[in-house]
């Protein structure tokens, strides 16, 4: 469930204006441009709890360093982007190594000023807004949507205060490369000066026995309310029915790291989660965040009922809170610390990021 894209999504949501930091390679009078952008960040999880199955190794500190570099540009109505990520595979079953990967590679076309389509390797539509309403960064509820996908056709548009997006991904994959089947998701949102509301949904067609992932349906909801200039509160929740195979038969184990199996006996497991969060901007440079989270995976209840397996320490569901401090000495730099309490996967998360 822990996905590599979590952080960058969180950041892009936070730094809506991040691209303003980009270095312009050229910009023509007709608007055609090419820009270089990216980020460098170091940091990680402090006192992570291995039982929560979010990290590759049982350590007292799990590095979460991350770097991105990309170019983006446009030729009139056509726009494009290539973005490379260099990240540590620190998630469960990850290698723990730093890995370079293409995160985005797409070409888009502005149908009008308010409507555009993209094709390629890109965020699925819901990926852009699945965390909406969460003012924290990395240690809160994760919505189990499909994230970035190749072979994706995406439409996004807005009208007045409304914004909508939908995408179709052919033969999507999980972060570990397991087949999802085709992925369709989308959102619809209302954005005002006082409140933003987003509703989204996703479905996967399933892998037809190729991986453990079967059919899936997910509903997501996010909202923000701007109480004052400095105080905002948010809400985010999702519910997901995901078919997971209970039986597998190895077919080819020539590569022990990537055995080929057939999967059967899919059972629908329900996952759900939600949070409330708040942000307080003390100054331009200092802000404080907090959240209270709830998460329930049916798989937890199943394992807790199993014979001969240890129960999860948090039971069938877990709740936890976060408190964070962000310091932004400039618009391109952020230092942040986020402390966790309750049934959380780590005690704290700390990092420093520079955007260019």
């Amino acid at each position, binding site marked *: 469930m822990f996905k590599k894209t979590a952080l960058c999504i969180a950041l892009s949501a936070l730094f809506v204006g991040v691209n303003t930091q980009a270095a312009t390679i050229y910009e023509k009078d007709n608007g055609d441009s090419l820009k270089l952008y990216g980020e460098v960040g170091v940091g990680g999880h402090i006192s992570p709890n291995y039982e929560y199955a979010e990290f590759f190794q049982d350590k007292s500190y799990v590095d979460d360093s991350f770097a991105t570099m990309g170019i983006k540009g446009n030729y009139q109505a056509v726009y494009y982007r290539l973005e490379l990520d260099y990240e540590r595979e620190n998630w469960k079953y990850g290698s723990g190594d730093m890995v370079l990967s293409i995160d985005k590679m797409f070409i888009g076309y502005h149908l009008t000023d308010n409507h555009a389509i993209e094709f390629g390797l890109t965020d699925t539509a819901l990926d852009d807004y699945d965390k909406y309403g969460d003012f924290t960064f990395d240690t809160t509820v994760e919505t189990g949507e499909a994230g970035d996908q190749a072979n994706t056709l995406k439409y996004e548009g807005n009208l007045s205060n409304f914004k909508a997006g939908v995408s179709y991904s052919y033969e999507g994959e999980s972060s570990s490369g397991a087949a999802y089947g085709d992925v369709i998701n989308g959102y619809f949102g209302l954005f005002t000066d006082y409140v933003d509301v987003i509703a989204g949904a996703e*479905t996967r*067609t399933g892998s037809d*026995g190729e991986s453990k992932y079967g*059919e899936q349906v997910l509903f997501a909801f996010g909202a923000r309310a701007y109480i004052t200039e400095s105080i905002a509160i948010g809400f985010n929740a999702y519910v997901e029915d995901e078919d997971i195979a209970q039986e597998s*038969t190895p*077919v080819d184990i020539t590569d022990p790291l990537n055995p080929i199996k057939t999967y059967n006996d899919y059972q*629908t497991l329900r996952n759900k989660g939600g949070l409330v969060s708040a942000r307080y901007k003390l100054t331009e440079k200092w802000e404080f965040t907090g959240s209270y989270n709830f998460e329930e995976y049916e798989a937890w209840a199943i394992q807790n009922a199993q014979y001969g397996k240890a129960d999860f320490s948090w039971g069938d569901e877990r709740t936890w809170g976060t408190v964070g401090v962000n310091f932004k000495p400039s618009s391109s730099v952020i230092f942040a610390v986020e402390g966790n309490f309750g049934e959380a996967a780590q005690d704290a998360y700390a990092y420093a990021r520079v955007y260019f």
Partner: protein
Amino acid sequence: MNKKILALAIGSVLSAGAYADINNILITEYVEGTANNKAIELTNYGAEYTFTATDTLQYSSYDNVIQNAAKENVLEGVTIGAGETIVIANGGAEAELLAAVTANSARVILSGTYDEAKYNSMNFNGDDHVALVDGSTTLDVIGTDSDWGANKTFIRRFADGDVTPAQSSSHVFNNWNEQIRDVAGTDTSENNFTDLGLATLAAYAADTGPQVVQMLPEDGGSFKATLARYVGQPVSLPLDINPDEDGDQSMRVARTFSFDYSNFRNNMVLSYKRPNMQPNQENVAGSSAAVAANAQNKDYSLLIESETKAADGDIPYYPDFSADPANNYIRIDDSVTGLEGVISYNSYNDIYTFTVSNTLTSANFTHNTPRQDRYALKKALAEVASGDIEVKVATQNVLNYFNSPFGGAQNNNGDNRGATSFSEYEKQKAKIVAAIQGLDADIVGLMEIENNGFGETSAITELVNEINLAYDEVKLSKESKDNSSSNRYAFIGFDSNGDTIIDADDSIGGDAIASGMLYRPAKVTLDAVKIIPMPSQHDDPVVNDNGVVVKNYTNAVLESGDNYMRDSLAATFIVNQTGKKLTVAVNHFKSKGSTCVEDWDGVEFGDTTKLSFNKDKALLDEFGSNDDLQGNCENFRVAAAVQLGEELNKISGDKVIVGDMNSYAQEDPMLVLTENPTAKELKAARKTFIGKEPQFGENGQVITKTYGYLNAVGMKDAEHGKTSWSYSYEDEIGSLDHVLITPSLKDRLVDAADWHINAAESPLYDYNEDRKGDFADAFYADDVFRSSDHDSAIMVLGYTPGETDSGQPVHLTKAGGFINVPYTIPAEAGALTGDIAEITLSNLDGNVYVDMSKVTSPKVALTADGEQVLGLELIGAKSSLYTATMTLKRDGEIVPNSTVSMTVKVAGADSLEPKVVVPEYDNTGGGSFGMFGIMSLLGFGFLRRRKAK
């Protein structure tokens, strides 16, 4: 019979040449009265004699030597004068008895009381013999070790012609007279001391032979009431015990000659007019009908004993049995007539005992269910319709077939339970091989085969190789012969460790034994293999009132709360020459012997921490755990039945359940799998798990769903008017082994039967070499009889060539380079002799290149008119998917309505090596996005099924 007691002077009958010898001393009177009034009168018909240390008076089956108060041989040193009569009496005998002896001027020698000499006091109580013994030689005996002489007095009779009787080393009923006139002149037997100490003998009575046992109307149909009238008397068992009932009512063998753990003797049990069917075989367990059937079994049973303890393998009253076991076998359901002996009653076991006194021959036995060899079995089974394909499915218990101690692969799941020597193993193998070859089935489910993998030296590999040795004729022209190589078997392996090969490291489940399956690739093709995990139970151990874990007599935990059973093996086959799938699941449910936690519910242990021997069974009886006669763990087996039913429901097509369900036909697990017409409450065990997943929770669950399977053997038995059984336990028989079919197979079922080669036979015929005395070799033969303890069962199914399940191609296997395509010529074609049948193939699989020019398409002239199935042989068709189009031509023109098209899959037959079968996607939710996904996006996701939890 009139009493006649003669008092004679002993001297008048003494011969002049009498000499001092214990052989001249006789037991002349026996008194077993109330309390300690027990006495034996001895009379010396020879010269004066002084008993030595080896001269003893003994009683009971334990041969207790009667001792005096000093715990010394009560006879030793006692001198008995010529012609003298002395009385040995219990030291606690009442004064009345002692006074009577004194009044008769005789001496009394007292044994010790119980307090003084314990079991060596004079303690016989009516179910013991009493004997005068010289060393180890029994000289003179009265009575037997069964209930014959309580509260009775017996006096010795003269021999014919008023001749002094001779010593008798066994009890002869006619030697003794019970009617003795007491001092008041009344005939009485109890506490009659009138003659005690007097050297008198009763008048000679000619032996009129045994009375013929006969049931009378006043017995009210109770056989026990009949037997009660004959206790203590010599009787014979006739062919017709009840003249008032039509036909013959003979005694039938209910348990053949074997070791009886209740009495620790070799014996057998007969039952009045029929063997004892286990009550739950034909009546719903726990029903009033089952209770009545149980009562009738108890009422009808008669334990058959020998006068002397039978040595292992030897029947004292039937010497021909061990002299020629192959011909003089005794099988369950045999009628036994002409037995002579004495009936007694054993109150401890509540059963009447018949102690045989005559010598039997094979003429005394009539085999109502005679031995049936492989040829007789084949002849007995109905055949499929002409032209149809016959598929026979069988179940065979292989009685813990272990080869690991004899060069086989190591067993990682447990220790040897089978043969204990190589010689025994060879014998076991020979018998099992003969049985499986004899079944001649196309699919054979095996139980109790060693779970030591599927490598070259595993038990199943070795067994199959041995079986296949008989099928050495490879000529296709001789395919119909018994020894054709087309009869060879492959076994089903399972890649349990997921390394994509089937080898020695794989197993089925974690028990030392497993279920297995054999099949004939020439008949069926393996399509899928599924291991169905069976429930395990994990609860707290059984504790006493103080919370202390209770142990049994071996100091092991009485009931740990952890119980397991063997996983089931389900294989789906395609019947060759058809497109029909047939799934066969072989099972071996938890036995009735060991307990599960539910069996101890309500049992009060108090502060007991350790049970004595057999106390566990006594407690279960006392607290009614087995009142419904299902044995232990029926709830656990119900849980297994549900699991089996549910998992098989996930497999489409025709299904067969075979194996040892450890449940009689009307017991709870069988009601779950078939139907529950009386709506009996069926409860699955608590705290069971499938793998690690909880099954029915903390309290178990009442099961209301049934799975509708049909009992194939039961159905055919009903048609044939017979009753089958597969197992003999104690004095009853019933079917623990079953062949169940889905209703979809009902019309395909041609025949089904139990093959009574094992349960009816004495265990003396099995491979074991111990517990058979000197007769192990005499009993053994390389044949099918007693190859196991369970009978096999076999079922015949019929298929029409070319028929298919919906959407399935006809599966054609290549043999000798050609395929045989079944062409079902429709009736409406009006086919005539001489019409020419033609066939064309077109390849449907784009991934396979087939050079169709190399496929020869035959033209076959019909030899009969009308609707028929014609086999068209094609050579050169590669393995692929084709459309086969067949048509008739007459005078070069296509005959209207004669064209038939079908999809066929051409493949090689399965090899004899086990193959990994990769399951097809089961459509359980892994994919097939359609309208549902769209509906979900529109907010109708709540309509999705959710199966977990």
